[in-house]
């Protein structure tokens, strides 16, 4: 199959492809690498805190006891009353019960006793790096959304710039030198992972730009109320009534849920405005063999079902919006799909890494040697996994309080500066590649020893 595209368009599409790659290559690589690691977000949590109690099911009474215990503890220590109370219920990927307030999170045992504080330093560091590059939340997530847009743009310009891309789709001259092998890997992986790359780029861009678009929608259609943009999609929030009330009957809500909806798996309980008259219990339940993250089921303070938000069977828009997350993170088909996502994510890392390498290689073959530029790119490609491995080992050795954000950014800055300075005199790539493999081995040992 060949696509007839005007030669000038092909030439300009290549320029566009290179422009976006140059502008955002390093950040796209960082986002791809952290996204690949984040496929195993639940598993990372289990690795970094192996002593937390685990269970297959949470007893509704035990869950309710845990909720009451943490609120009693907060009352005793004089902490400002929490605005939301969350209960994570055991799932096959993360078989733990965790009770969370605005200020703390505790793992719970089978009897509902608070056992150990949740310690997810590494997992959350990775999540926030991928979601918002550790920047303030709206700014960071919008930039990452913009990177998703650039990835969609790269896919389009990449296809336009290579008219033979489908004709050569199975041709992989992996052992050819002079840039041929590198270009073939880049182009072939690009073609065959296209559905995956497009899916994660579009969903990531939509999630990331959600704040900006919803602000526009609110200004245009909802008199500036951003929450009104989301209410028709994800459901209502509690109506505020701050008069005091006893904690709602969470156990009854969980029992009602199980009796009334036996085919879905409840995995999250949210009590909005707990211990006020306006409080509401929301249970999120997973629907098997669906891309939606679940549906929201609502209960009153006596545990009586009052309705659902319709993410599973409501408007098409609701179902699409609720499907963005699982499609992006790959947690919709057990470990097999997670492994497939990790491998496809790795392919995306290879594509991002080889893209700029191909461009630098072409310049070098034309006699334009810029060792510092190559050193900088080698520093990004091989140095990022080195620093990520260092962060993980530090988390395991130093504990949850390890300053991972500072270690990552300062470490990466020093490593890049070193790579740029050393590149004209020293084989930076070989050294960093060895360091990356050594770092991977050290992380593996640390993970096993945790």
């Amino acid at each position: 199959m060949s696509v007839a595209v005007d030669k000038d368009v092909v030439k300009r599409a290549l320029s566009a492809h290179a422009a976006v790659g140059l502008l955002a290559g390093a950040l796209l690589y960082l986002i791809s690498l952290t996204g690949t690691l984040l496929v195993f977000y639940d598993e990372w949590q289990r690795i970094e805190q192996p002593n937390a109690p685990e269970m297959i099911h949470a007893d509704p009474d035990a869950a309710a006891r845990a909720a009451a215990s943490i609120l009693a503890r907060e009352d005793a220590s004089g902490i400002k009353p929490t605005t939301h109370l969350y209960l994570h219920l055991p799932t096959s990927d993360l078989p733990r019960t965790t009770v969370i307030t605005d200020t703390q999170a505790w793992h719970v045992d089978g009897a509902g006793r608070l056992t150990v504080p949740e310690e997810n330093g590494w997992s959350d560091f990775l999540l926030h790096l991928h979601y918002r590059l550790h920047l303030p939340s709206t700014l960071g997530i919008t930039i990452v959304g913009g990177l998703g847009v650039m990835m969609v743009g790269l896919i389009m310009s990449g296809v336009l710039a290579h008219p033979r891309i489908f004709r050569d789709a199975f041709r992989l001259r992996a052992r050819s030198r002079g840039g041929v092998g590198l270009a073939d890997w880049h182009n072939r992986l690009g073609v065959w992972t296209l559905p995956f790359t497009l899916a994660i780029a579009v969903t990531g861009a939509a999630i990331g730009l959600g704040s900006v678009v919803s602000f526009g929608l609110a200004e245009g259609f909802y008199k500036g109320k951003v929450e009104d943009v989301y209410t028709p999609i994800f459901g209502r929030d509690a109506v505020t009534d701050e008069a005091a009330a006893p904690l709602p009957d969470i156990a009854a809500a969980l029992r009602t849920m199980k009796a009334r909806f036996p085919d879905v798996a409840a995995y999250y309980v949210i009590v909005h405005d707990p211990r006020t008259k306006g409080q509401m219990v929301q249970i999120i339940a997973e629907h098997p063999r669906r891309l939606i993250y679940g549906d929201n089921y609502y209960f009153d303070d006596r545990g009586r079902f009052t309705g659902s938000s319709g993410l599973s069977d409501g408007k098409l828009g609701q179902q699409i919006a609720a499907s963005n997350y699982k499609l992006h993170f790959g947690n919709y088909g057990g470990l097999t799909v997670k492994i497939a996502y990790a491998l496809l994510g790795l392919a995306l890392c290879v594509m991002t890494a080889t893209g700029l390498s191909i461009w630098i290689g072409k310049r070098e073959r034309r006699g334009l040697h810029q060792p510092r530029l190559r050193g900088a790119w080698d520093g990004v490609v091989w140095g990022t996994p080195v620093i990520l491995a260092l962060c993980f080992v530090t988390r395991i050795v130093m504990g949850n309080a390890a300053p991972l954000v500072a270690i990552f950014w300062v470490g990466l800055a020093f490593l890049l500066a070193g790579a740029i300075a050393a590149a004209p005199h020293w084989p930076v790539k070989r050294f960093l590649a060895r360091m990356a493999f050594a770092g991977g081995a050290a992380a593996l040992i640390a993970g096993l020893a945790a």
Partner: protein
Amino acid sequence: MTVAAGAAAATGGILLLRTAWGGERRDAHANGRAWAVLALGVLLAAAGHGAWGVAMASLAAMAAATACLGRAAYTAAPGRGGASQRRAHMMPQGREPWHLGRRTLTFLFTVPLGLIAALLAGLALRAAAGMAGWHDADGNVLALMAVPVIWAILSTILLIEPSRARQSLWLAAPALAGGVAIISGGNI
């Protein structure tokens, strides 16, 4: 079961494509059969479990293609053929000027102005959905999903389009449509 059959058909479609594209000459019938089997796989998976089924069949197809690529990489003979030397014209060579002003303007057109135009086009779609009687959930999600896609398409067009005047038209058209639609269909 239907999803499994769909995934198997999608895998078969990839293998048929590999066979069809591996010949000395392209055979339109063989290509057509391969694409048809691939499409049938996706349809079967969709019939079985909707979007979830399509996602599973797509993963199976991509796994099959990657396996074919792995084989191609393993059996590839060492070669010394030169890679493409097409210039991307992204950075100056030698004493060529940097054209920083032109590059900055292209960045402004593509990134901030492209986002604003895409946002206005998304709001126009939302207004049109409202006027057509769509539920708010559908209209809002249409805008939320459309803005990044429109921005990506627009930025690619703007980067490919050499004329500043036509670039401005590409930016103005969705922005103007957005502005009119919001004023007539929104609350502004």
